[in-house]
């Protein structure tokens, strides 16, 4: 059989391969593991029930169960039975090896492409928001940012995601907001790996205030440019972490 035909046949088979339970369970596990390892789901947080997880991820209950079992095996969650029971996020004693492992499985190309996709979306949302933001909205955002406590890295990642979502909502586009939620779920925690450095967390706060300033003055270019620059910085910090992870792993 000519090589090309065989290759084509295999590629087609891969496209139409059933999304088996194992593959989907691994995806669900990865989402939750990223969020736990990077503190977006903080220690002590109760995860939704198996049935609720299945509904939210759009997978079978048995798939959600399998993902939870893997998380339990890795010590990332603990399941308690009975009243007040459920699956609880466990404290992660040493994040570094877990984050390293995750960074080593992704290429620089993939990491950068995540950043490009997210930056395109977030900067377009900020640009639109600049001409659609009222004084009330500005006040609401300022209050939100004032309530952020970024002394801890998981909290800083949650703050980042909240701020981004609120700005997206000000674009008045339901589709942009839904896409934001989707991307944040897919790689939000990973993108903000750089927040383990306090200096990056502090810079983020400055950035939020700058964006609010641009929204208040209706400065579309300012809102877009600042947002792009902030996310590009995050991507460079992420790549630095990736390089360091590769070095430690070799």
């Amino acid at each position, binding site marked *: 059989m000519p090589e090309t035909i065989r290759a084509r046949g295999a590629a087609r088979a891969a496209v139409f391969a059933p999304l088996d339970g194992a593959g989907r369970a691994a995806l669900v596990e990865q989402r939750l593991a990223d969020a736990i390892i990077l503190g*977006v*789901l*903080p220690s002590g*947080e*109760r995860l939704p029930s198996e049935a*609720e997880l299945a*509904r*939210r991820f759009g997978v079978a209950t048995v798939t959600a169960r399998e993902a939870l079992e893997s998380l339990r095996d890795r010590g990332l969650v603990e399941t308690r039975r009975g009243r007040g029971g459920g699956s609880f996020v466990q404290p992660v004693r040493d994040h570094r090896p877990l984050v390293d492992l995750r960074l080593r499985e992704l290429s620089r190309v993939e990491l950068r492409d995540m950043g490009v996709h997210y930056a395109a979306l977030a900067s377009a949302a900020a640009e639109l928001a600049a*001409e*659609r933001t*009222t*004084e*009330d909205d500005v006040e*609401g955002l300022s*209050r939100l940012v004032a309530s952020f406590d970024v002394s801890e890295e998981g909290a800083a990642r*949650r703050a980042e995601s909240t701020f981004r*979502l609120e700005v*997206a*909502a000000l*674009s*008045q*586009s*339901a589709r942009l*907001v*839904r896409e934001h*939620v989707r991307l944040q779920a897919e790689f939000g925690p990973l993108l903000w790996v750089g927040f383990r450095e306090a200096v990056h967390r502090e810079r983020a706060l400055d950035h939020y205030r700058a964006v609010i300033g641009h929204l208040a003055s209706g400065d579309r270019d300012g809102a877009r440019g600042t947002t792009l620059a902030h996310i590009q910085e995050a991507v460079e910090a992420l790549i630095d972490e990736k390089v360091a992870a590769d070095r430690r792993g070799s």
Partner: protein
Amino acid sequence: MTTQLIGSRADAVAAVFAPVLRLLEGWRHPLAAALAAGAGERSALLDPAVERLVTPALSDRSTLVVGAGFIAAPGLLGDVPLHLAWWLGKFNTLGAPPAEAQVRRLPAVEDPSSEDFHDYTFMEWWRVPAETRLPHLTGPYVDYLCTDDYTLTLTVPVTRGDELLGLLGADLYVREIEAALLPALTGAPGVLTLVNRSGRVILSTDPHRPSGVLLRNAAGSGATALPVEWGGTPLTLVAEA
């Protein structure tokens, strides 16, 4: 356009929101009665009372309501600090594909220590009617908590004497309000634009003026602004030549 003509269009706007307002006002007394009878002691007692009141409207497409419920004032209930007793209509696609959507409870997070917990007292749909004690239309806004879509939310205060017990509310999709309202506004000479109290466009007969943009300084450019008398906080119909 004459003030009289604009006035008749403003009445047409009021007529779209009036049935929703009447619906909520119709729930006020039974709800206050349930609270007086002790339903406020625990959320488990309150929820069935709210469910009975609001779910019939959620299966009835003629109301345009895609979500409705009661939002308790902080401290009203004995067992939880804040409580959102909210149901989603059959036509509300939040978290469910359209074919599978049923009338269902909005899963609300009431543990203040959880990351998914939202303190709704910061939100416009709570803040404004709680302060003015008047029905209030919030939006258009992207509501990523209760509809995941471009939304208008009507909230009315429920009080006992001076005390605010909570709010009754209903969600409407902006796209459905457009379909219901635009025919009543088009056909007149010039441009008519309905704006909320922040000057945000709810809809306009100018097809190139999207919902959600801000109409700044329209009144200063030879336009006529007429209040829509609908029984709540101000909505304005702006007529331009």
